[in-house]
């Protein structure tokens, strides 16, 4: 039982069911596991389905999008088939979430202290006073100066960095086992971004909280996570340990992403953009979704969709040509 992962996503397929019973698949058969206390990153461009995958775990799918098939097992219980009130009991003390925009993700007409205290009052049965004390303590732990006074502030009275700290304090107030982060640092200045990442890391280490971190920023994943999955057009194309994937990518898309990101250790290294655009959800290519943009694509790639297969120890990639491409050009 101790080997059981904290979170296990199996064949998760998300999509829109239309009135005439046809379906549009947005996320197709995503598999990954997150162990207790692990930090797992999901990287991809806008529209790759990374945020939707996260929202499916948090039970926050937008109206119209539903889980078409697959399962999300949290400590052996399938979240997808769990009744609504059972899931709501998990939201907060077991699974918490941090959003991208700290400005819009906080209720503008409620004091931040009250917003932090809300979850402990509901889930831990704390009284108003106790919950408020806990909120101030959480704010202190997230490094907010003068937390007792700031607890009475409204979100608009705080800076972006402080607001994101409030979000973190709120998410961790009930010591969840799993923290879902949807681009939590994208809206912040780079310097603040770094502080917030360090803070998240430290707090999660203290409480043993596992992290699922969705971002388009490779640098952020490199700083924060140990394992990662790269998503493209609704599917995982490569999965492995962050350091190893960065050093030696085994999927042309991952390689393209890394080549297009600046690397300060190699300042003369020329940035290469991936040609073309990700495919439209309503018009996905028949074969490998990346084939139309892939410089290595062969005829076979346009016909069938490659499965995610082991290519190295601790590494999986969804590419027919992975062996040929990367054996020929070792990194």
């Amino acid at each position, binding site marked *: 039982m101790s080997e059981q992962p904290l979170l296990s996503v199996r064949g998760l397929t998300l999509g829109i069911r239309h009135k005439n019973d046809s379906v549009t698949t947005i996320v197709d058969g995503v598999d990954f596991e997150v162990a207790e206390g692990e930090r797992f990153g999901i990287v991809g461009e806008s529209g790759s389905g990374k945020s939707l995958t996260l929202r499916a775990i948090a039970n926050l799918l937008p109206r119209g999008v539903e889980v078409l098939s697959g399962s999300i097992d949290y400590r052996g219980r399938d979240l997808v088939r769990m009744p609504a009130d059972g899931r709501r*009991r998990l939201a907060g003390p077991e699974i918490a979430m941090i959003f991208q925009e700290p400005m819009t993700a906080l209720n503008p007409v409620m004091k931040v202290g009250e917003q932090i205290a809300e*979850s402990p009052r509901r889930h831990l049965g704390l009284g108003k006073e106790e919950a408020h004390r806990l909120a101030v303590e959480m704010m202190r732990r997230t490094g907010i100066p003068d937390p007792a006074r700031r607890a009475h502030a409204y979100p608009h009275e705080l800076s972006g960095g402080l607001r994101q700290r409030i979000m973190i304090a709120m998410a961790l107030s009930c010591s969840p086992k799993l923290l879902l982060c949807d681009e939590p640092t994208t809206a912040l200045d780079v310097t603040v971004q770094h502080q917030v990442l360090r803070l998240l890391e430290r707090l999660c280490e203290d409480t043993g909280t596992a992290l699922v971190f969705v971002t388009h920023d490779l640098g952020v994943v490199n700083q924060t996570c140990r394992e990662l999955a790269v998503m493209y057009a609704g599917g995982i194309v490569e999965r492995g340990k962050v350091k190893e994937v960065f050093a030696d990518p085994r999927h042309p898309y991952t390689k393209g992403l890394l080549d297009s990101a600046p690397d300060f250790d190699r300042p003369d290294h020329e940035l290469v953009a991936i040609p073309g655009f990700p495919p439209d959800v309503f018009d996905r290519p028949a074969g490998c979704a990346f084939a139309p943009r892939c410089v290595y694509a062969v005829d076979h790639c346009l016909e069938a969709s490659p499965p995610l297969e082991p290519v190295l120890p601790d590494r999986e990639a969804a590419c027919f040509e992975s062996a040929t491409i990367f054996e020929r050009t070792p990194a």
Partner: protein
Amino acid sequence: MLHRLRFVPGRIVQAIPVAIGVTILVFLMSHLLPGNPAVALLGDRATPDRVAALSKHLGLDKPLWLQYLIFLGNLLRGSLGESLSYQQPVSGLVLHAVPVTLSLLLFALVLSLLISVPLAGLAATRPGGARDLAARTFTLLGQGMPQFWVGIMLILLLAVKVRAFPVGGYGDTAADHLYYLFLPALTLAIAMCPTIIRSLRASTIQVLGSDYIGTARSKGIAGAQLFRTHVLRNAAIPTVSIIGVNLGYLVGGSLVIEKVFAVPGLGSLMVNAIFARDFPIIQAVALFVALFVVVVGILTDIVYTLLDPRVDLAAAQGAAS
């Protein structure tokens, strides 16, 4: 919190020129109406001598500007003149009628909120669904029916057929008042609801789609608690100003509705005074209604400020001047 209400004294000072303007308009308008009040009082067969004598007694022979100054002077001393038809001080008559009308308006406002808030909430949770359709049909109907007709239909249905409510009047005790005012208040509420529902539905849909509702859901908050603590206050902000504007219209409507239900408020007083060409009463009622609208404007700003911590009207005023 309170420091954000610094704008209130300034707003009251601003209201003074508005009030003076209102007195001028009120004074002039009643004098531009055809028919000399002295003639109206004495009847068609009065001799010119008697008309002239009464006009002199009432000060109607003096130049208009002097009449206005006298009117204003009396007003400042709290005297609104003497009613021509009742032969009583106007201030007493109006003071008697004001609480009636104010209770009616307040009752109507409470009823319209009791109807609108749940309907708008239900409509917004599933836009385009059956409940949304029902709420929208109700708003269309409410908007399409003239107030006085709704009043008459309610009398026919609930007072004459079912006999659940009185046909009209005001009663003697406080409980009586509530009972007697229910139908007129409901009539006004039905007229007021469509605007509130429309605005509140739209803002609720918008709030439900916002990120902080996702945050609240990620904390396990749902259903009525979500609506109460996170949705309603945010959705109410734009609606409050709309209610403020519409309260002004509601006063106009209440004047007619009071007549339909024989409620002894300002409306009944006003309508009777118009038929009797009783200038002082017309002036007093018009003045009161205008000042009421000004006060409602200030109250709206106060409520708005208290609801939304981001609003600082004092700072806005300082920046403008």
